[in-house]
């Protein structure tokens, strides 16, 4: 009998008393499948929209009318991310490289998640101010003043956002003249999304469809139609 054929001794992972089941905290497998206790099809599927169900998934509770409206508004403002932005550029490159839709979707999701993580991290002080609900907002989150020639678009966008919000919603934060991103985080915060992961999730998933759609328009393998010099790199090897 060779060593390969001998019965194996149990290893350390075989000798641990593991639990027999995996706990599920959000979705009861059913049937019927339930989300935070609500029947997914007979209840939520009949009476709630996708935005409200997404909100329920993230927070564990159904939104009020104002929360649902403001959350939906934030999703609409976050729903686009042009090719100038890294995640869209990455998704386009993935498609250009020939990856099928699943690969494009994966690349877009990872890049969007990383961008969202960095955005939320970069707004830590702003989010702490929102959570405190008092005091002076931290520096660094004010929109540039509107000027002719394109600058000030942040301020104009925030004004459009404020005009569409339910009365009084996130008013204190928006009155401080924040950047567009800071304003949208304030709206999400006021809507009841307080945890960094909830904010990251919303920032990452809201533009996912548009990002993937932009990429899927690119013919796989159309390498000559994509400039390798955008943006340019300069090889600067150090002496080994």
């Amino acid at each position, binding site marked *: 009998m060779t060593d390969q054929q001998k019965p194996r001794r149990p290893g*350390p992972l075989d000798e641990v008393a593991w639990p027999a089941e995996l706990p*599920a905290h959000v979705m*009861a497998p059913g049937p019927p499948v339930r989300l935070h*206790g*609500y029947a997914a099809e007979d209840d939520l599927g009949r009476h709630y929209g996708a935005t409200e169900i997404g909100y329920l998934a993230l927070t564990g509770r159904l939104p009020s009318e104002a929360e*649902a409206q403001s959350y939906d508004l934030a999703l609409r403002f976050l729903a686009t991310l042009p090719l100038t932005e890294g995640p869209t550029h990455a998704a386009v490159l993935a498609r250009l490289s020939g990856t099928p839709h699943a690969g494009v979707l994966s690349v877009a999701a990872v890049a969007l998640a990383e961008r969202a993580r960095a955005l939320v991290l970069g707004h830590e002080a702003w989010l702490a101010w929102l959570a405190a609900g008092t005091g002076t907002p931290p520096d660094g989150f004010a929109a540039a003043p509107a000027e002719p020639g394109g600058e000030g678009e942040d301020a104009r966008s925030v004004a459009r956002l404020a005009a569409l919000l339910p009365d009084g919603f996130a008013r204190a934060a928006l009155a401080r003249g924040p950047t567009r991103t800071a304003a949208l985080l304030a709206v999400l915060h006021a809507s009841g999304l307080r945890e960094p992961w909830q904010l990251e999730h919303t920032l990452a998933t809201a533009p996912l469809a548009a990002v993937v759609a932009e990429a899927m328009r690119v013919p796989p393998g159309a390498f000559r139609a994509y400039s390798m010099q955008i*943006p*340019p790199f300069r090889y600067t090897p150090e002496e080994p």
Partner: protein
Amino acid sequence: MTSAPIPTRVARTGWGEHGFMGHRLFADLAGVEHASGLLAIALTGRRLSADDQAVLDDVAVACTLADPRIWPAKVARIVSGYGRALPGFAAGYLCLEGALIGPWMAGAAAAWLGRLAARPELAADDEALARALDEEIRHARTLAGFGVPFRPADERVAALDRLLAARGRATGRHWSLFARARRLLTASRRLEANISCAIAAAGLDLGFAVEEVAALAGALAQYTFFSNAFEAAREPAPALQTLDAACVVYVGPAERTSPRAAAAGASPGPARPALAR
């Protein structure tokens, strides 16, 4: 095009020759470097001697624990279980992006090893080293690279110890410090070292900087993920696509009825998504 060129040390495509981390790929590296040497160049730009490459090979072999039951490896298998290996490989790697397991733990171990190795008063004084270790543990409430789950000791550390000793390489400054720390912490706290700290000590002695050790440890995980992802893609396991329902127990909020469903009464009534109204 308005942006300034992005400086890169990594590579440039040339005519008949390519630059890689400051080296000429064909003229300098081809036929000379092993895969482990190329990995060192990729992470640091520096070339390892043949002896050092052999040590890095030892580290790579000793740290490979690819049991598919281990969490990130199982993720690689679940994702690859639909028939394609690379998504699972990438997904497995994403699981390492945290401080609990994997490369960042090796990076954290390298940080304290580097700190203590830089203190000459600890070089030959075990009591002083024990105090310094206590300080590290008090400060971080744990010591990165120490603690072994599910078994009394990490067999990979012992294996790497033997391999380095056989090559006469168990006397490096960081490995020696690591060995003394192991001895002290086993005796005083019954705390055993795990492979993260061993990778850190060996990596530092190979000349990797503290901030490069996490990347080294991450790169060495490739064998775990490739093996699991490729096998799972070739041999999909239905149990990983859908678990037996008996494996899952729901512990979330109890069954409840939404306000709109309650208002609609027992009769299902018309669908009424609020935002579609």
